């Protein structure tokens, strides 16, 4: 009963907190809202016309939505990787990053779910998935697994920070005995969501481009590069605009994670390229299409080469301590890496899996205006949610929001 009351009061205070802020904050939220509304309007067009409003066809039947979904699962998973050192190794440095990380995970997950819903042909029938009233194809369908792990992960990532925040809010110290098991679970779970999402593609014998044992590990590596890279950028912004103190040391430690992950990712990329191009088989055609284009169809070339060059440059630069420890350069590198991996997981992974089609035909994919707007809208929604979460979290952490017994 008491917890409920505290919770209610937290919500009220949080609401006050997020509705008040500097002018820049209001403009930021206003812009996000506008983009969201625009996305929603375009989604209503899509609802009405069906998915023909998107650029997808029978040939390339997943596009921008699923690409972003895949990428964001990675971000969500990686955000929590920071949890481990923070909570378990009592490394005080990381703690602030972790709160941000979990907030990021939650908003990334909500974006994931939004992307999945946007991609559905019949969103009104999604209740068919709810166990009990619907039918759930478990354990056969990897998508069913994915739904389970994503929702489970969302649950964990909401409860742990909520618990910590509520305790802090009341001015108490959170009990490690309660949250540490949860933390362990969520780290384990983070790997699981990413592997399961990789298996979603990896398990399809129909698509040789995905049906590749390296896909899962590569997902992990690239996620652990892109996720923390995003966190570094976010931390930098927070440091600049709020009174929240984040030590340089924290950012540098995270950049270590980014570097190692990016290096591993690069090694795996080389391994993949070697396999596809040293002894090219019939199954390498998708890779040929992706990197060099096929028979004059070259839509993906600019994307993938941008991605690869950004990736390689950023990774090499990150490898040198001197460059990495210059924070301003680090932010740029993180930005590069983030974009590189976003392209790689999106246009570089999902789309070429469908090209050429089962009968060797090439038809290319270009996202439509509606599709892009909805995507932007969902990203804006993610940023919106994240801002709210982060603002509340920071206020609580800094002791600005305290439970007042009335």
């Amino acid at each position: 009963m008491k917890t409920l009351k505290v919770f209610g009061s937290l919500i009220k205070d949080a609401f006050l907190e997020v509705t008040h802020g500097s002018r820049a904050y209001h403009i930021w939220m206003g812009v996000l809202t506008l983009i969201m509304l625009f996305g929603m309007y375009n989604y209503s067009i899509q609802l009405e016309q069906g998915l023909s409003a998107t650029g997808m066809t029978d040939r390339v039947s997943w596009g921008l939505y699923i690409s972003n979904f895949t990428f964001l699962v990675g971000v969500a998973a990686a955000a929590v990787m920071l949890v481990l050192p923070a909570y378990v190794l009592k490394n005080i440095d990381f703690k602030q990053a972790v709160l941000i990380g979990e907030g990021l995970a939650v908003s990334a997950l909500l974006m994931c779910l939004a992307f999945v819903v946007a991609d559905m042909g019949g969103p009104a029938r999604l209740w068919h998935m709810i166990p009990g009233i619907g039918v759930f194809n478990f354990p056969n369908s990897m998508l069913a697994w994915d739904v389970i792990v994503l929702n489970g992960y969302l649950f964990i990532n909401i409860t742990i920070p909520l618990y910590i925040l509520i305790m802090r809010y009341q001015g108490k110290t959170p009990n490690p005995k309660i949250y540490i098991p949860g933390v362990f679970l969520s780290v384990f779970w983070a790997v699981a969501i990413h592997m399961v999402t990789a298996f979603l593609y990896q398990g399809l014998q129909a698509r040789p481009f995905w049906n590749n044992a390296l896909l899962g590990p590569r997902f992990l590596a690239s996620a652990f590069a892109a996720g923390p890279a995003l966190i570094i950028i976010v931390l930098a912004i927070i440091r600049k605009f709020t009174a929240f103190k984040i030590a340089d040391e924290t950012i540098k430690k995270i950049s270590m994670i980014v570097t190692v992950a990016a290096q591993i990712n690069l090694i795996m990329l080389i391994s993949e390229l070697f396999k596809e191009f040293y002894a090219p088989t019939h199954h390498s055609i998708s890779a040929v299409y992706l990197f060099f284009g096929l028979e004059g169809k070259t839509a993906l070339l600019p994307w993938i080469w941008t991605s690869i060059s950004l990736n390689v440059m950023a990774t090499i630069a990150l490898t040198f301590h001197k460059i990495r420890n210059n924070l301003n350069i680090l932010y740029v590198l993180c930005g590069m890496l983030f974009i590189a991996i976003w392209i790689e997981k999106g246009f570089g992974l999902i789309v070429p899996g469908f090209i050429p089609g089962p009968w060797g035909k090439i038809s290319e994919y270009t996202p439509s205006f509606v599709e892009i707007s909805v995507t932007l809208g969902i990203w804006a929604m993610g940023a919106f949610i994240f801002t709210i979460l982060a603002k509340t979290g920071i206020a609580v952490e800094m002791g600005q929001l305290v439970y007042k017994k009335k």
Partner: protein
Amino acid sequence: MSETNKKWYSLNLNRSKKSESCGCGSNSGGCNSDKPKDGFDQIMDISMSRRTAFTKITAGLLIGAGAVSSSCSIIGSDESKEKSAMEWEEYFKGNYKLMTDEEKDKSINRLVRSYELNHGKKINISSKNAEENVLFGYAFNISKCQGYMDCVNACVEENNQDRTSEMQYIRIHEMKDGKGFNFEEADDNYYHEVPADGHFYMGTQCFHCDNPPCVEVCPVQATWKEKDGIVVIDYDWCIGCRYCMAACPYDGRRFNWKTPEVPEEEVNKNQHYLGNRLRKKGVMEKCTFCIQRSREGKNPACVEACPTGSRTFGNLLDPNSTIRWILDNKKVFRLKEDLGTEPKFWYYMD
């Protein structure tokens, strides 16, 4: 065929929206004449304008808005009340696979009745189950196929496929002699006199795999393999995730990207729940070996239409069937056998 439906080549950047304002304000039919209707609407439609308006307002916010709106609205006539009640029940019905016979009958009665209310015509929807000791299979003679495309026409007419997007289950590939089964170089869009010299023809469609990857991956079991080997889809259960499409190695599946349209007079009224009944937008469909025909003992429409006899359909379990003779006596092969999908669709040559 309107321009807006031709999304295939274009970027869609300045897709002009069709104007579909309707000022008549009537609730029961009448004002939705110039709007394309999908299968669901063709059967279930009450008042598109109202539903559309509501959907638009609640877009993305309220799941199931369409159904809710139309059944909660205050409607004048008894007929539309009956319709909305039926629509409501249709929305909440279960997966066909798990329905009892009674539930199946009820659902079918609703579908038939709604179609009657909307078009004044009777349709016949069957829910006939698989026969004992029957496993359907298909054989295709690549020496005989001449590329006439009669099968494709017959299929489209039989199975009520969307006319505007030219959905077709069957593809005929024109292959060059001496190149093997080279699908990459095959011409799928030929239009010249056939058979072209130095070419042969090969048809593909859903192969009704015995170990179908599409069925494995469906998260809601909206698609499954029936006892007689036909892989079917419950159109009302499919959520349109298109995972099955990604999983099919044979390009067997087709998705309703937009509202499918079939002119009323061309609708094949002899239907099966799992077969050619009218579909709605956002659901998967594919060849069902013409389940509405084959369960009655007929050959699929493509087999019947083919003038060359390249297509053979039959019961694989019956030792006297022609398909069995072909399997036992001809040099048969299947496509992508290494994937372990075990298609029940064999090719052979003379």
